[in-house]
Each structure stands twice: as structure tokens, then as C-alpha cells.
């Protein structure tokens, strides 16, 4: 399972990476915004994306739309982990095809629960 974590704050990438490692996911790469993430996704065989919303450059919602619009990536599960908490934003993310939405601050248990739920649906 190859995972890409997209967040502009290195500390948050580190926290998510550590949590994922605790859950048994060792193969985790990082990108600091959508512009960096998209070419990585197009060139690498990633199985899963965890992304923030608010980032300089390409934002998470635009990354999500770009992934869904790319026929090679459109199936890729995307979990949004963000401080953005407006109802309209969550609805917009759902309409854009997000697979899960976690608001910061979050707990390790929440991340585990959402990941399990997403993988359950994929099977």
C-alpha cells in the first residue's frame, strides 16, 4: 500500500506519517501542495491520498477535482484531513468525490476508523 500525504505544514505530514506507520503503512511519501502532489501521483503507483485543503499553490479541493478528472487516477481513494469546517465546504468535497473527511484537530482513532471504512468499501 503506497500512500501520499499532502499538507503544507511539515509537522502535520509528520504526525500523519507516524500515525499511518502505527497502523502498519510503511510506504508513505509526502508533498507540500497539489502542484507537487499531482505529478507524483501521475508518475507513481499510489494507492491512497491523504490531503489537506488549505495550501498555497494548488489547494486540496482542486487536487481532488484534478484526480477525479484524470482517467488514470480517477479511482484513487482520497481522504481529506483539514481544518476547513464549513458545511458548504464538506458538501463541496463530497460532491467532488472525496472518500472521507476528517476535521482537525483529530485523533488517531478517527484516522484509523476512516481508513478502515474507506478500505472496506474498496474491497
Amino acid at each position: 500500500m503506497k500512500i501520499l500525504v499532502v499538507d503544507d505544514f511539515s509537522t502535520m505530514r509528520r504526525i500523519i506519517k507516524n500515525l499511518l506507520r502505527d497502523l502498519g503503512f510503511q510506504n508513505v511519501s509526502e508533498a507540500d501542495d497539489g502542484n507537487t502532489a499531482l505529478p507524483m501521483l501521475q508518475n507513481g503507483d499510489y494507492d491512497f491520498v491523504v490531503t489537506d485543503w488549505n495550501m498555497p499553490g494548488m489547494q486540496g479541493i482542486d487536487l481532488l477535482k484534478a484526480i477525479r478528472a484524470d482517467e488514470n487516477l480517477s479511482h484513487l481513494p482520497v481522504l481529506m484531513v483539514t481544518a476547513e469546517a464549513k458545511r458548504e465546504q464538506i458538501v463541496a468535497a463530497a460532491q467532488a468525490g472525496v472518500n472521507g473527511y476528517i476535521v482537525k484537530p483529530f485523533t488517531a482513532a478517527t484516522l484509523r476508523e476512516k481508513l478502515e471504512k474507506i478500505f472496506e468499501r474498496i474491497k
Partner: protein
Amino acid sequence: MASDSIRISLAQAKELVELLEQGEQAQADALLGEIVKVQHDELFASVGRLTRDLHDSLQDFHVDPRLESLMEDELPDAKNRLNYVIQRTEDAANRTMDAVEASLPIAEQMHQQVSHIQPVWDRLMSRDLELNEFKQLCHDVDSFIRDSGQHAAHLQGLMTEVLMAQDYQDITGQVIRRVIELVQDVEQNLIELLKVFAKREDSEVQADKKKAKPDNIGAEGPIIDAEQRDDVVNGQDEVDDLLSSLGF
């Protein structure tokens, strides 16, 4: 220039018509000039008053040393303060995670040693152990005790490091409080500025306020007053409820 005040009387109008009928063009023009002169004077006086108010206000702003220091020193300073907050919080997070990452292998090693010793120990307790096995067990237990002492001291040090890394909260809290004060100062000055320049009707201002918020899904960053707002969710449970209401 009030619209309810009389601008031209019937007598003046009749006189004007008479003059024109008699072909006294120059006199008619003079009369008309006299009639509108009153209004011009009012307009000029009004514009003059406004100009003087504006001038005085600008003069006041110019000499207000608070505004000057706000623009030249405190706003750039606030940027630095906020960057400092980012730096401090990043350092604290990394310090904490360094300590945690150093602790986890120690816990793992202790766990492995225990799992190695325990089956043999259990057999000792049930009097089912050969002498040579017993000797080996003694050595294993001996090194486990020594290692545990070292590990405990090491873990204690790392936990203290985690504890100390949290001191960023005090420092950043103070810095942010000062930035809040500065923002309030700027806001107060902007309100004064608005009072001078804005002569618009309230309804116009209201309309502009509505126009200023066209993008409801633009990124806003952490919501610091979720309890006071009804357009945001308050916690993961509300996110889950919302998404399940959408069929997720």
C-alpha cells in the same frame, strides 16, 4: 440647496417674463443670475465646509504618531511575531516527535526481552526447568534487569523532553495576544478613516458587505469560533452526520 426652500417666487417669475417680453435681455439675465446666486452660495459654503473637514481630518491623521508607528513598525513587527509563532510551534512539534520516535524502539525492545524470557520463566514457576536452562535464564534475567534500569532512565529523560517542548504554548499565546491588540488598534484607526471618507447610506454598505463574500467554499483556515457560527461544523461527529445525510 434644500428642495423644500423656495427657489423662485411668482413675483420674480412674472418680472422675468415681463422683462423678456419687453426685449430687455440683459436685465432678464441679471435677474435670473440673482435668483440662482443664493443657491450657488449655499453649494459653495457646503463644499467649503466639507473641504475644511477633510483637510483637518487628514491633518489629524498625519500628526497622529500612533498611526505612523502602526504603519512603519508595528505591522511589519506583527508579521514577524506571527512567523515566530509558526517557528516556535513547528520546533515544539518536532521536538516532541523526536522524543516519541526515540521512545518507541525502547518500548519495543523491552517488550521483545519480556516475550523471550517469559516462556522459560513460566516453566521455572511450574518446576519444569533443566539446570542448564536455569543458568541461561539467570543470565537473561540479569541482563533484562540491567537493561530495564537504563531504559527507564532514558525513557524518563525523553518524557521530560516531551513535557518541556510544550512551553511553546505560553510564549506563542503571549505573542498572539499582542498581535490581537495591534489588530484592534488598526481596526479603530480604519473606523476613524471611514467616518471621514464614507458618506454612503447604510443600505449601500450592507449591499457591499454581501458582495464581499461571494466564495463560500474558499479556504478559511482553522475555525476559532465554531460555537458562535452556524455555517461550520463543530467536531468530527457533525462532519460524519452531514456526510451520512448526503448518503455517505
